[in-house]
């Protein structure tokens, strides 16, 4: 809202420099976004709030400043040159939709000379960045910017039957608007009509046919109140916001139309006009005055300081409240009609704080008498997974949650995506059901910018539509790797990302969460290359998958190199009970290692061997690792050689070779009965 400092002086004797004025305005919440010198004036740009339509004119701003500086607020003198004609004899006003137009006032001014406005008036309009047109148009703009009450002027001679009817538009009616456009009206739009046709779209724009022209002499002044929602919907439908509709949409002061009409009439009298007697005021259901009770102890309770009663009463009275002390320190307030924002005690306390000054409120820390124990298991686990990912050399990314049908279908997630009804673009019309698309985009972006290797992870929500049609959100972790890992180093070549580097990360994550007992199964999925993917299972449910990305998917993202990708559903995973954590003391006794190499069918997968060994629950077996695997000569065709290292340790004694032998026999027996194996030649198992 542009505010001219000179204009404010109509209401207050302002004697402060611009800096002081701007500071004062900021302190009462009327933020000055900027200012510029205009001729001998200064024009401020003030940010106003949706709930303070009273500050959309100079009058309202001047009132606030008057309160801030303790200055008297001066009302304008509005002398009228009245004729003997009664307004009611000249024009008839009828409201058919009282809910949409609660008040309509009118005056007639006859014999106005249409000419250019005097310099003082033109200057005021120019300071508002408006082009002066003629005295009548300028007066209505002037009243709007002075008071925040829009008014409209009609050529009375062009109002058929001298009748003003406020009604909804009829089917098929149209209006040639002042800006030259032809508006098709619908039956929800409120119009001002004469006997035969609409002459204005209420509160938004007037009609060309009834507008004031150079030959006009008799003017009808409309000063009314309209329902904000109705004006907003009309303005939106025709795609036009005017200074008038902007104010009506935000609520105008129901008490103000008579004064605005009088103000316009008074100005038109300066151009030879004579005003009709008696304001026509159709106001079928006068609004009730709002009352609020204010208690002194609540001021303290909310602000944390005592404000003197004198300050409270004086501030509220100058803001237009009627203050009556009902009991000691308890006041009943009548709220001025222009303050639509004030309904409760808290609203009034804000007014007191605003003018008292936020800077005078003390700065204290809130007392803390109780503190609940914090159980943040989910957040802790997520944070711990992030640390695993960093440790594994993955950089963290955050992608937008949106995707589009083509990309979404690429991943065959078997989930119904969430559809955005009013997306910013079709490229962002869905919420993603997988994080994979974002990661592949990031890989393409970074490869195109010279990155030799990229390892990325994202931890975010994925979204889907559930069976029962409600929406679901799953915490998801996805990561992808391609190209070289780490930095070049003089000691040797960099390793390349591959399936097992990704799988190792999966295992590290699962073990970090104490889900190490997860299992992997071969996975066939459109997203992954056939034979190069696994699904991850925990307690009978799929919790994720990993594999080499299928070339058609890579092609979609214009990626030429191999990429390995994994995605884990953390919501599903966290719902599972992890293995319990238990502390057992470190054994003081030495361990015994045994190496064991077996020849086994190539088709047998490691996981099956592991299961057989694990199921044995061998006593004192601390751990075992696969230390070598190979096939080809001297291993017979169709067979592979696997070498394991077993580490045994007892918690309270030194193990004897005989103890270990028993264990070893047990392991071999189990493997023999499960698979066809034999020991590699030249190695003794019975040492």
């Amino acid at each position, binding site marked *: 809202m542009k505010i001219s400092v000179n204009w404010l002086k109509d209401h207050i004797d302002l004697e402060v420099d611009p800096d002081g004025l701007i500071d004062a305005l900021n302190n009462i919440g009327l933020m000055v976004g900027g200012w510029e010198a205009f001729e001998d004036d200064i024009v401020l740009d003030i940010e106003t709030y949706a709930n303070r339509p009273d500050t959309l004119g100079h009058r309202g701003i001047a009132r606030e400043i008057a309160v801030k500086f303790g200055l008297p607020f001066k009302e304008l003198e509005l002398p009228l040159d009245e004729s003997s004609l009664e307004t009611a004899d000249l024009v008839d006003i009828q409201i058919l939709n009282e809910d949409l137009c609660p008040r309509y006032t009118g005056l007639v001014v006859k014999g106005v000379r249409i000419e250019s406005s005097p310099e003082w008036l033109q200057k005021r309009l120019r300071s508002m960045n408006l082009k002066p047109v003629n005295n009548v148009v300028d007066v209505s703009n002037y009243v709007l910017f002075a008071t925040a009450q829009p008014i409209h002027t009609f050529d009375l001679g062009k109002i058929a039957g001298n009748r003003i009817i406020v009604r909804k538009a009829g089917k098929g009616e149209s209006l040639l608007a002042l800006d030259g456009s032809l508006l098709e009206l619908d039956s929800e739009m409120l119009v001002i009509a004469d006997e035969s046709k609409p002459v204005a779209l209420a509160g938004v724009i007037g009609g060309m046919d009834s507008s004031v022209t150079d030959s006009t002499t008799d003017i009808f002044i409309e000063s009314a109140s309209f329902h904000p929602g109705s004006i907003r919907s009309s303005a939106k439908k025709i795609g036009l916001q005017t200074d008038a509709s902007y104010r009506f949409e935000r609520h105008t002061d129901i008490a103000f139309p008579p004064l605005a009409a009088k103000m316009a009439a008074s100005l038109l009298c300066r151009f030879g006009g004579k005003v009709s007697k008696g304001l026509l005021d159709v106001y079928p259901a006068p609004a009730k005055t709002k009352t609020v009770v204010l208690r002194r102890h609540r001021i303290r309770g909310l602000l944390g300081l005592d404000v003197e009663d004198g300050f409270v009463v004086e501030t509220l009275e100058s803001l237009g409240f009627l203050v009556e002390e009902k009991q000691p320190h308890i006041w009943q307030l009548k709220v001025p009609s222009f303050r639509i924002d004030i309904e409760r005690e808290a609203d009034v306390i804000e007014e007191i704080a605003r003018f008292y000054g936020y800077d005078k409120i003390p700065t204290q820390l809130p007392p803390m008498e109780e503190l609940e124990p914090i159980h943040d298991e989910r*957040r802790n686990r997520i944070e711990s997974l992030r640390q695993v990912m960093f440790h594994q050399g993955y950089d963290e990314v955050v992608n937008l949650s949106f995707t589009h049908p083509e990309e979404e279908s690429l991943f065959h997630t078997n989930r119904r995506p969430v559809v955005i009804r009013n997306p910013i673009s079709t490229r962002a019309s869905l919420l993603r059901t997988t994080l994979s698309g974002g990661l592949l985009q990031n890989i393409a972006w970074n490869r195109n910018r010279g990155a030799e290797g990229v390892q990325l992870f994202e931890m975010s929500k994925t979204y889907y539509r559930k069976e029962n049609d409600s929406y679901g959100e799953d915490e998801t972790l996805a990561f992808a790797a391609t190209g070289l890992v780490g930095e070049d180093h003089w000691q040797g070549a960099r390793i390349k990302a591959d399936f097992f580097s990704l799988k190792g990360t999966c295992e590290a994550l699962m073990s970090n969460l104490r889900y190490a007992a997860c299992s992997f199964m071969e996975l066939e999925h459109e997203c992954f290359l056939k034979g190069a993917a696994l699904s991850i299972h925990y307690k009978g449910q799929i919790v994720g998958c990993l594999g080499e990305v299928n070339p058609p998917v890579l092609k979609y993202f214009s990626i030429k190199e191999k990429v390995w990708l994994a995605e884990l559903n953390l919501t599903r995973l966290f719902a599972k009970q992890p293995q319990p954590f238990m502390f057992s003391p470190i054994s003081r006794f030495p361990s015994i290692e045994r190496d064991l190499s077996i020849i086994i069918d190539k088709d047998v997968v490691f996981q099956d061997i592991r299961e057989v060994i694990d199921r044995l629950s061998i006593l004192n077996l601390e751990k075992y690792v696969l230390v070598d695997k190979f096939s080809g000569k001297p291993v017979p065709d169709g067979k592979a050689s696997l070498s394991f290292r077993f580490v045994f340790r007892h918690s309270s004694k030194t193990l004897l070779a005989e103890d270990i032998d028993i264990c070893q026999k047990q392991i071999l027996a189990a493997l023999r009965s499960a698979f066809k194996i034999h020991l590699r030649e030249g190695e003794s198992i019975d040492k």
Partner: protein
Amino acid sequence: MREIKNQIDAYRKELEKATARIKDAESLQELHTLFLGRKKGYVTLLMNAMKFLPPEEKRDAGQIINLFKKDVQDVLDGRQKSIQKSRIISFAADLTLPGRSPYWGAPHPLRLFQNRIESIFQKMGFSIEEGPEIETDFYNFEALNFPPEHPARDDWDTLYLDKDDWLLRTHTSPVQIRVMEKRKPPIRIICPGKVFRKEAPDPTHSPMFYQVEGLIVDHGITFAHLKGTIDFFLRTFFHEKIKVRFRPSFFPFTEPSAEVDISCTVCNQKDDNCRVCGGSGWVEILGAGMVDPQVLKNVNIDPEKYSGFAFGMGIDRTGMFQYQIPDLRYFFDNDLRFIRKFSRQ
């Protein structure tokens, strides 16, 4: 005398050759012993030889021997200095070669900022709460006192889903409502997370961004406590010496409301043409206020017994200001060169 002179010339030649061969402190020490050794050093030998000269020649011989001794000293000192310089590389292997360390992944800057904010509030006894990103009109607007015709509810500002009344949350305030529904005061929480608006991406806008909101509800919570909490947070997050300014504002869910500015850390309030604060000296960082009594009533907390305050700030925007990042979209481009910059922050 002549013999001594010849001998000295021979020694000089030997010195020249030997110095060229010196590679390290050890060989230098050897040479030192050879020439200046007390018992069998060349200079000592010359001195011994001088004793047999006639008295009239002794003086001259003494002079040339001393001159020679000084020259040797100078040459060896010079070598000593140059050896000390290159001493570190004088071992068998070059230990100054770059070391080897595993690559440690870099956190995304937004998560980094978020963690910093969280840890400050955790020190003040706040717990962290999260909630769904897909929300209903009730939790996102109605319970927060947004009137039905409020512009934020417009199709132009909020992303709505294909089912009526469902939307992508436009702030994390719904989490506050959900917590207040479940728990009775005292409540002392912050709610960080993703929020969504219908805004096309440009240098200062994004349809998705990060926010953190906070809430305290308890007996006797006042605006003074709001000021104290925010002041502590901002001075910890930015700098102890920044100035903090509270000015009146308006939000539907707080009353009274405040906008919180900090003194511009780019120009320190000294540049009238500062491109960050526009010369005003202040940068808007946070919105706050006392929880509106209606909001408390909506979640069955009696506003006569309890009061509270709430605040909210953009994580991306705050990070952009702190590090002078020129474009919001950098956060979502995920260029590794950008992301990795912050791991040493």
